[in-house]
């Protein structure tokens, strides 16, 4: 694991909205690394700051403190033009709502080639058209569609147009901000499989932001759980789903709906109460409790989590 190359490092970032008097901390001291070629998931409830983290990385939201490092170079704060261009090309985003993320008054041709116009990395118009056609084919759409307007497409098709738009930039890293939560259940698999195929074919790395835990388990390699702007637990996906330690993670996992009536009958939803932590006595630290398994806890909690881990392993 350690020999894998770090593509993106997020170091102690905070994002504060509003002025001093009405300041609201959306992201509070969050750190994580994303390795090349993996899918990193961020889960948490609405308003927990997952989207803000994604937007901070792609620089829509400015970070208040900390730094973001992409391919060993700082990309947060002020950067020069050359680096800015490189970051624009290398980091792309897939948006949540395909209904609002496409320009309704532009043809698909323009939407997909918007990034190309900005980079001007094509020789002539025929070549640009060719790149657009290839990108459309790549996401399973027909090149003929480029003459149409977004309102002529279904939600799944529109989301694929959004993916094609980011693919023409030949990015290395894609932030997928709840890419399927606005889609119909029947076409979610379509988009997820497309994302997985593209990852394999083009060697992409994803930051997958979601609140649907069963999908996160399906698509991600590692998961970070975020609560009220703080990362509370981070581990490899299977490790996290098998050994959830933080009470908030356990509460989230206990709420996953299962298509099993017997299980549903006996389901016990764990209620998470932040008051159980007593962080006023001892502040929590971000510790590696097991190799690759990080958790936000103070000393007494670390001890209980350790015994929990041991009993879990014994139980297996």
């Amino acid at each position, binding site marked *: 694991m350690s020999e894998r190359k770090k593509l993106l490092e997020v170091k102690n970032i905070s994002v504060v909205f509003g002025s001093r008097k009405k300041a609201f901390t959306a992201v509070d001291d969050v750190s994580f690394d994303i390795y090349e070629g993996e899918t990193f998931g961020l889960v948490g409830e609405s308003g927990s700051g997952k989207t803000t983290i994604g937007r901070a990385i792609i620089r*829509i939201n400015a970070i208040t403190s900390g730094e973001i490092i992409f391919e060993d170079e700082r990309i947060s704060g002020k950067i020069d033009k050359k680096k800015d261009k490189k970051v624009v090309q290398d980091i792309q985003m897939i948006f949540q709502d395909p209904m609002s993320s*496409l*320009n309704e008054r532009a043809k698909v041709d323009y939407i997909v080639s918007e990034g190309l116009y900005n980079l001007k990395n094509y020789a002539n118009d025929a070549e640009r058209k060719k790149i657009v056609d290839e990108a459309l084919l790549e996401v399973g*759409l027909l090149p003929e569609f480029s003459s149409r*307007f977004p309102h002529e497409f279904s939600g799944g098709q529109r989301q694929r147009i959004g993916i094609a*738009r980011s693919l023409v930039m030949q990015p290395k890293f894609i932030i997928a901000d709840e890419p399927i939560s606005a889609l119909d259940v029947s076409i979610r698999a379509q988009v997820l499989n497309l994302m997985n195929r593209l990852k394999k074919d083009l060697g992409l790395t994803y930051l997958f932001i979601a609140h649907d835990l069963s999908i996160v388990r399906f698509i991600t390699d590692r998961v970070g759980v975020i609560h009220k702007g703080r990362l509370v637990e981070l581990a490899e996906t299977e490790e996290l789903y098998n050994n959830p330690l933080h009470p908030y993670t356990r509460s989230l996992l206990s709420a996953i709906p299962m298509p099993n009536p017997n299980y549903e009958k006996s389901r016990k939803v764990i209620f998470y109460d932040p008051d159980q932590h007593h962080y006023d006595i001892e502040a929590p630290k971000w510790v590696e409790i097991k190799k690759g398994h990080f958790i936000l806890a103070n000393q007494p909690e670390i001890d209980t989590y350790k015994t929990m881990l041991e009993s879990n392993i014994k139980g297996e």
Partner: protein
Amino acid sequence: MKLKTHDRLVEHIADDLFEFANADTDNSEIAGYSNYSYWRSTVQVFLKNKTAVLFLGVIVILLLFTMIQPVLPNQKDPTFIHINPETFMQFRNVKPGTEFWFGTNAIGQDLWARIWSGTRTSLLIGFAVGLFEVVIGIIIGTLWGYVKKLDRIITEIYNVWNNIPTTVILILLTYIFRPSLSTLIFAMAITGWLSMARLVRNLVTIIRDREYNMASRCLGTPTYRILTKNMLPYLVSVIMLRVALAIPMAIGAEVFLTYIGLGLPVQIPSLGNLVNEGRVLMMSQSLRYQLFFPAIVISMITISFYVMGNAFADAADPKNHV
């Protein structure tokens, strides 16, 4: 029993009558080349509105007529004072008839010629002010709404500028320059763009942070292209309505300014001057025609632009495109 009859029937059907159709998922997505074009659909929807087309016709005829009227045969000079050759007196307040189609005014000028000449002046004012308002209003409005750094500065400038009454600016300008056509256009233009800019600014602020604009920013699209490709196409319908209203509003403002004595000099016929002259004679029933004719022309212009503007604003909204 029934099943057997069915089977027997099936046996009698020849296999070569049917063939299997293979479902092709790629094929199902081909629905043909789409030739939807925004402007063509807009025009089509507009033409479906019969009332709007009627008023469009009215405006076109009016415009054409004001342009060709001076070169038509038997037209009189709008400023020439007609003298009765028998009495050597002016033709004062002659009622509409065969010689003077719309009659004459108090000093014997031909009202028919004056009305068309005045319409020409007023439409020129309307179009000039409207054009200036649109160009300056849109440029400043989009920058004001989109570029956050400029928001504060332009808002302050707007507040100061907007708090100086238009009349005061006009009085100052007429003191500095002489009242003339260009002074009037200049004075109305430098105050008129403010409301247009604010309207555009508000609209831009509403759509600035929509996801598709964020997507454009993530793709590194420069601001001017976001403004022209992402913002303005969304504002077409609202701007069109404003433009259509700006022209009659400028004409109306000219009428008002002439009324308070700050408009064009009397020797230049304009709808404002004509209405002002007619207004004085309004109380005498026999002379009322001097007010009616220019008022009818103003009403026609105003109503036509208003109806057309509304119809066009509806047509320019793609939600109304079938």
